[in-house]
C-alpha cells in the first residue's frame, strides 16, 4: 500500500478528515456496505451474524455480572444468590447470561449444520472453517469454566469430572490434573483461575472471530447452490439487502431468547446447581449442560478411559481435516443425491448422541451411544471420502442468477467461458 493519506470519497468534512488518516469508514463501506454477496442466501446465512450478537450479549452481561461476583469458594454461591435477589436487575443479567450461552450454542450448531450441508468448508474456505472450529473449541472451554463459577453441586462435580479427563493422559496425567487444579482437588485455586480464564477467553474468541470474518471477506460467502458468483448479476450489496435480512432473523432470535429468559429461565439448567458445592457428596446423576451432551455421550460410549477421552476430543479434531476428507468437488448437498441421506443420518445420530448423553449410563443407552458414535466417525472417515468417487452429482446450475431470474441477465463474456466445476 502506498504511504500517505487515504483518498477518502466521503463528503462530510469530519468523516473525511478521519477517513483520510484512518480509513475505517471506507473499510466499513467496502466490507459491510457495497460488499458483493451472493443474491440467493436463505435464512441459514443469518446465523453467523447471530453468533456475533450472542458473543456481544455474553460479554456485556458477563462484565456486569463480574461487578457483583466473588470468586472465593466460601462466598461464590452466596454472591450469585445476592445477584439474583439484591442487585437491581441482577436476575435479568444472570438469566440472560446463562440462557445466552444456550442461545450461543444453538446458533453455532445451526451455523455448523449450514456449513456442513452446503459444503462451505471446501476450498477455498478451508481456513475460514478451521478458524470456526477454533472458535467452537474456545467457546466450549469458556462455557465449561463459566458453569463452575456459581459453585453449586453441578459446578463442582462438572469441574471434577472434566478436569479428571486429563488424568487419562499416560504417564503425566496425574501431574496435569494437579496442575489444572492448583491443588489436590477442585478447590479455591481452581475457582480463581477458572474465573480469570473465563473473563479472558471471550476476548480471545473475539480475536479469532475477527480473523474468521477477515478470511470470509477474502473468499466471499458460499451460498445455497454452492457455486461461485460469476459476475455482478449473481450478487447484491450487503447493505441494505442482507442487513435487512439479518435484522429479520435477529428479531426472531430475540423473541426466542426473551421466551427463555422471562418464562423458562431454568429449563435448560439443573436444579442441583442451586445446592452449594459439597466436595463430600456427588449428586446421583450428573450431566453436563445440554450443549456438551453429544460429546459426553461419545466419552461414555467407549469402555476405556483413555479411548473415551481420545474419541471425544477426536470428534471435534476431525473437523480440522474435513475439507480434505470430503473428496467431492460439489459443495451443496442439493446436488449430491447420495451424500444427502448419509448426512441426514449423521445429523440424526448427533441428536441421538445429545439425547443419550443426558441419560444414565445404562442399557439401552450405552449400545445406542456406541452405534451413533461409530456412525459419527464412519461418516467422516469412510463415507465422505468414498462418496467423492462413487457419487454422480446432479447437474449444477449455470449461475446463481439464472434460476432466480429465469433466464438471467446478460452475462459478461468471461463468466460464461469459465469452465464448470465437475458435474
Amino acid at each position, binding site marked *: 500500500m502506498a504511504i500517505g493519506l487515504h483518498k477518502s470519497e466521503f463528503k462530510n468534512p469530519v468523516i473525511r478528515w478521519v477517513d483520510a488518516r484512518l480509513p475505517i469508514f471506507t473499510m466499513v463501506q467496502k466490507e459491510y456496505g457495497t460488499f458483493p454477496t451472493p443474491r440467493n442466501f436463505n435464512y441459514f446465512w443469518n446465523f453467523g451474524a447471530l453468533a456475533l450478537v450472542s458473543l456481544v450479549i455474553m460479554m*456485556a452481561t458477563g462484565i456486569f455480572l463480574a461487578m*457483583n461476583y466473588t470468586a472465593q469458594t466460601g462466598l461464590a454461591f452466596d454472591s450469585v444468590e445476592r445477584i439474583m435477589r439484591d442487585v437491581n436487575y441482577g436476575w435479568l443479567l444472570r438469566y440472560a447470561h446463562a440462557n445466552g450461552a444456550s442461545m450461543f450454542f444453538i446458533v453455532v450448531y445451526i451455523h455448523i449444520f449450514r456449513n456442513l450441508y452446503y459444503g462451505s468448508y471446501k476450498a477455498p474456505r478451508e481456513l475460514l472453517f478451521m478458524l470456526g472450529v477454533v472458535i467452537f473449541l474456545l467457546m466450549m472451554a469458556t462455557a465449561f469454566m463459566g458453569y463452575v463459577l456459581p459453585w453449586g453441586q453441578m459446578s463442582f462435580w462438572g469441574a471434577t469430572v472434566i478436569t479428571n479427563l486429563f488424568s487419562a493422559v499416560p504417564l503425566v496425567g496425574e501431574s496435569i490434573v494437579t496442575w489444572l487444579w492448583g491443588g489436590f482437588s477442585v478447590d479455591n485455586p481452581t475457582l480463581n483461575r477458572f474465573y480469570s480464564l473465563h473473563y479472558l477467553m471471550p476476548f480471545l474468541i473475539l480475536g479469532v472471530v475477527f480473523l474468521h470474518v477477515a478470511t470470509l471477506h477474502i473468499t466471499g460467502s458460499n451460498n445455497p447452490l454452492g457455486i461461485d458468483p460469476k459476475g455482478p448479476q449473481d450478487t447484491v450489496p450487503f447493505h441494505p439487502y442482507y442487513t435487512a435480512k439479518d435484522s429479520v432473523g435477529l428479531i426472531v432470535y430475540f423473541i426466542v431468547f426473551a421466551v427463555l429468559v422471562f418464562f423458562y429461565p431454568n429449563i435448560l439448567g439443573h436444579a442441583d446447581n442451586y445446592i452449594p458445592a459439597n466436595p463430600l457428596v456427588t449428586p446421583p446423576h450428573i450431566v453436563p449442560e445440554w450443549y456438551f451432551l453429544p460429546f459426553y455421550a461419545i466419552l461414555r460410549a467407549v469402555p476405556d478411559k483413555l479411548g473415551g477421552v481420545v474419541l471425544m476430543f477426536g470428534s471435534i479434531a476431525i473437523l480440522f481435516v474435513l475439507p480434505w476428507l470430503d473428496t467431492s468437488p460439489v459443495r451443496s448437498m442439493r446436488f449430491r443425491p447420495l451424500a444427502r441421506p448419509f448426512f441426514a443420518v449423521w445429523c440424526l445420530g448427533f441428536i441421538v448422541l445429545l439425547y443419550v448423553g443426558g441419560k444414565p449410563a445404562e442399557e439401552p443407552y450405552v449400545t445406542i451411544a456406541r452405534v451413533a458414535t461409530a456412525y459419527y466417525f464412519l461418516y467422516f472417515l469412510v463415507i465422505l471420502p468414498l462418496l467423492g468417487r462413487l457419487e454422480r452429482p446432479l447437474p449444477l446450475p449455470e449461475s446463481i442468477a439464472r434460476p432466480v431470474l429465469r433466464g438471467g441477465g446478460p452475462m459478461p463474456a468471461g463468466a460464461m467461458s469459465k469452465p464448470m466445476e465437475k458435474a
Partner: protein
Amino acid sequence: MADSMAQPAPQDGGTRRDFLQLVTGSFAAVGVGAIAWPFISSMNPARDTLAVSTTDVDLKPIAAGSAITVVFRGKPVFVRSRTEEEIKAARATLLSELRDPEPDQVRVKKDQWLVVVGICTHLGCIPLGQKPTDQRGPFGGWFCPCHGSAYDTSGRIRVGPAPTNLPVPTYAFTSDTQIRIG
C-alpha cells in the same frame, strides 16, 4: 442499489421509505434504551446495600465534651455531646463571620447533640477532633490535617480551603437517648 428501485411519489414531502426508516430507527432506539437500562441500574446500590443504610446510635455512653464516630453508609458520622461553653460559643458566632452561614439552631435537633458527617468538605479527609488528645483547631471543633481546614463546635467551616460546613445527615431521635441516622 436503493436508488434503482421504484419510489412512490412523495406525499407531503416524505416517502414511504422515509416513514419506514424513521419508525425502524425509533423502535431500535427505544429497544437499545430498554436493554441498556437494566445494565445501568445494576450498578446502583443493591437492595442489601440499601438495607444497611440506617444506623442506630445509643447516646448514653457519650460523656459531655466527648464524641464518638459511627459508620453510616460506609462514611464516618461524628456524634458529639457538647458542653454548655461549646454550645454558647457556637451560638455567639455572628453569621457574618461564616463562610457558609448557618445558625447553630438549624444544625441540631437537641442543643447538646451535634451530629455531622465527618468528612472534610474540601477533599474528603477525616478531620481530627474526636479523641480528647486530638488537635481540635482554633475554633474548638475539628481540624483537618490534610489541608488545614478548621471547623467550629457546630461543625461549620471557619478557616482553610474547605468550601462548606460539615453536612448534617438525616436523623431522628427514636428515644431520649437513641438516634437513628438515615
